[in-house]
Every structure is written in C-alpha cells, then in structure tokens.
C-alpha cells in the first residue's frame, strides 16, 4: 500500500458566500457576529463563567480559612502571606505551562493556576478587614459575654465584610482576565476565540470576544457590589 493515498473524487460542498465585510476582514461585522453567536461566542462565554466562578469560590475558601487562622495565630500571617504573594507574582502563562506535566492539558491545570492568583488578594482583604475591627468594639463584645466564636461570627466578620467584598471584587475581575490565557492549555473560555482570531486573523472575532470578557468583568463586579450592599445594610443606614 502506498503511503500517499491515491487522490479520490471528493464532493466539494458549497459553503456559500460570506458578506463583503467578512471577506475583507472589516473592523466589526455585525451580521457575522449574530450568525456565529451560538457557536463561536456563547459556549466559550459559559465556559469562562464556570472557570471564573470555580476559581474564585475555591480561592475564597482557601484564602478565607488561611486568613482566619493567620488572624488567630499572628506568627502565621507572615509565612502565609509570602507564599500567597509568591504564587501571585508568577507569570500566568508560565504557571499554566509549568503545571501541564503534572495535571495535563485539562481544566484542572487551569483552575489550579487561577486559584493561585486569587489567594493573595482575598487573603490580604480578609486579614486586613479583621485587623481593622476596633479594639474597643471587641472589648465591649467580650464584656457583653460573647465567646471567641461568637465574637468572630457576630462582630469581627460582619465588620470585615466591606473589606472582604472589595477583595473578592478585585480577585474576580482579575480572574476573568487571566482566564483568557487558559486557552493556551485548554480550548475553552473566551481566550479560545481570541487566540484563534490571532492565529487566523479576523477582527470581528477578536474584538467581540475581548469585549465580552470586559463586559463579563463588569457584570461580576456589579453583582458583587450588590451582594456586598445586601450583606451590610448598616453601612447604608449610617449614611442616610
């Protein structure tokens, strides 16, 4: 058998004619964007949301626990902070690629890297929020008979909430943007259409996917602001 397949007689499908804008790679072809929304943009957008939510939730749990521990055992704050800061300073692309030998070209690789980048922000936000609770407030709470656990749940954490929420907002917006780099590891998320529109140049795809990432960051940020307001009604009451 010959190595090169003998040329067959293929049926060459008629793929139709694209609009002038698409053929000439115009700045933004609205017709194409609408047509391709369900295949090119919607699935990556959904994947992107999942990627970000998973990373922020896991990152929050880890960083929150670490911050509470560091708040209780002050000597731990330094070492934990150093580790978290170190993870944060790694270039995202390098971290993704460094993880590939261990976790493969998988979503797991992406999530580990994304979680690493959220840690320092959330950790610092929780820790500084807790540290900023005034001493006299804590003393009077203890004076009223609250134990350590009640003090944490009823006084310290609620007062630290605005700081925690602002940390979460920064971490989430950052994760939305870093998650686009995940396309180097898995063909998923909004980075995928961006990366492909760079390899095979096409402005509409590039601009639309980038704009969706920006929009997504705004939406997440807005949602967290609303959640923050809902959780801290007293901050508004004080103003009004």
């Amino acid at each position, binding site marked *: 058998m010959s*190595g090169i*397949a003998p040329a*067959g007689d293929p049926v060459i499908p008629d*793929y139709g004619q*694209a609009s002038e804008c*698409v053929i000439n790679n115009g700045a933004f072809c609205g017709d194409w964007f609408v047509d391709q929304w369900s*295949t090119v943009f919607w699935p990556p957008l959904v994947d992107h949301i999942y990627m970000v939510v998973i990373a922020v939730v896991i990152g929050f749990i880890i960083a929150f626990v670490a911050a509470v521990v560091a708040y209780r055992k002050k000597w731990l704050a330094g070492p934990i902070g150093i580790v978290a800061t170190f993870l944060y300073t790694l270039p995202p692309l390098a971290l993704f690629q460094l993880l590939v030998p261990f976790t493969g070209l998988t979503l797991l690789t992406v999530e580990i890297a994304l979680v690493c980048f959220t840690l320092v922000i959330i950790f610092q936000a929780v820790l500084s929020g807790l540290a900023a609770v005034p001493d006299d407030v804590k003393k009077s709470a203890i004076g009223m008979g609250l134990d350590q656990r009640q003090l944490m749940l009823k006084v310290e954490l609620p007062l630290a909430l605005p700081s925690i929420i602002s940390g979460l907002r920064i971490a989430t917006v950052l994760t939305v943007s870093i998650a686009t780099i995940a396309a180097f590891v898995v*063909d998923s998320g909004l980075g995928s259409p961006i*990366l492909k529109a760079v*390899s095979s140049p096409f402005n509409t795809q590039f601009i639309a996917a980038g704009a969706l990432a920006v929009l997504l960051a705004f939406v997440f940020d807005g949602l967290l602001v609303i959640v923050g307001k809902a959780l801290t009604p007293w901050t508004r009451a004080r103003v009004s």
Partner: protein
Amino acid sequence: MRKLISHTLNRRRALGTLGALGAGLAAATVSGCTATTANLGGTKSGAAGRRITVGSKGFAESWIMGELYAQGLRARGYQVDLKTNVGSSDIINTALQSGQIDVYPEYTGVIVVNWAGTDTALGTAEETYDIAKKWESEHGVTTLQATPFENKNAIAVRQEFADEHGLEKVSDLKGIGDFIYSTYPDNVSGAIGYEGIVETYGLDNMELKTLSIGLNYQAIERGEIQAADVFTTDPQLLRSDLVVLEDDKKLFGFQNVVPLIRDDVFDDLDADAPEFLNTLHSLLTIDAIQALNEASAINRIDPAQVAKVFLQENGLM
C-alpha cells in the same frame, strides 16, 4: 536541504500559533510527563478501544483536520475527546508521546525535518512519507495514509503574467527580465527564502519586496509585485487569477498530511477507524482542502461546521 526545509516550517509554526510564546518552555516541561498524565488520554478506561482523544495544531487547516477526524470517528461510535489548538509541532508531538492525545494530523516534511533529522535531499513525496513513517514507528506511533494535498511554500504569479512569459515552472522565470517577488520579512535570508530561490534557480532578475504575511495577495492583484510567496493550500489561490509555478528543482520539500496514532491506541482500534481515516485522506485533494480552508479562513464558518458538511456530503457520516 534540511536547513532549507526547516525555514518553511518555522514560518508555518510561527504563523500557526501564538503558543510559540510559551513553546520553548512548554516543550521542555511537557516532555516531563509520562505516567502521571498517561491516563488523561482515556484510552484504557471505559470501553477499551472505543475512546480516543484527537488533537490539532494551532492554525486553521489543522483545526479543520481535527474536526474531520473527531466527527468521523464519533459517527462510527467512538467516544471522542477533541483538543483543538494544542500548539506547535513540538508541543503536540510531546502530547502524543505522553498520552495526552492519541491521534493528530501532522505534515510529513515537519516530521522529517524537525525530528527525523534527515540531511539528504528528498526527491519525492513518497520518500518523505517513508522516512516520516520509519521515524514514527521507531517512536511507537503508527502512520496511516497521507493526503494527496500538501501544504508548502510556493511561488505564484498572475495568469496573464504567466501567459505573457510562458511560465509553468519556477525555472521559467530565468531571463524574463526584471520582476518583483514578495515574501514576509523573515523569509529573506533562508535557503528557501528569497536568497535561496535566487541562488538555486539562478534568478538574478528577481527583485525583492518584503510584505507582512497576508498582504501578498492584495499586492499581486494590484500589480505592485509580479510574483508572490504563498502556501499551496491558501484559499486566496482559489479567488484570484493566480497560478502556482512548479517547484522543478524540489526546493520546497514535501508536506502531505498524515494521521499519527500512538501504537497502543492503534492496536485497540477496530478496523473501521483506520478505514475511515484512509478514505477521508484520499478525498483531501488540493481542491478540497482549499475549499475547506476558504470556508473557514475567508467565509469564517466554524471549523466544526465546515468539517461536518464535508463529511456529510461525502457520505462519511
């Protein structure tokens, strides 16, 4: 010759993937994976032999090939995981060796030049295929039949220019008077770049104009240049009145596409999978792949959709 070809390949790689940014690092790190990632390919879990992970490289033609493999195998009842845009040749080859993917489309010349490291000049596509097959088999990988089409550098001129000067092959350009040839800036000094062509074909009358990739076609249509460096599967070749001159001194090597399947996966496959891949490859003539590339790279239809229509109209699913 080896050096000659590697220059084209560098271009294809550079073109193909932004992943080149991380390529060096990734190639080094990915090569570390063996047992830890071997199960990610999923070939041994579930129904043995009916699960397969298809990979594709970082450019449009490879995305289409990957979709063709994946959808065709799915239609035959295989559970297919498709990893598109895995990266450059080195990265995806390491992914294949380490079990992260099981099959992917590769160019015979890439295998020969990048890995087999042959220094002899290759006279035919068959010879190139044979060396590639031998190298892959020594590395635990099975090669099926290659496509009739190949994707490599070529020189194109306008039809009227060819008629005027009676041009059919590159050596016909000698002695037709001064004309301008364009290529991208980093393909000037290589042996298959401007200087190499001038030397090999003795084209002292060929002047150089460097243009960014993709601007060649506009320039030649406007008559700013008379000859352009192109890829043989460029869909633009379908749209303009250009003719590709025959590379009669075999300067550009051979680049047919061949499916690479890791041996352990291949041994578990039922006969329908290789049969499908061989049939598919025989249908991928230069006309067919140009049409597929046009649908994807110019009409901007999703590669998955492009592949689906082709498979359906050719009775492959």
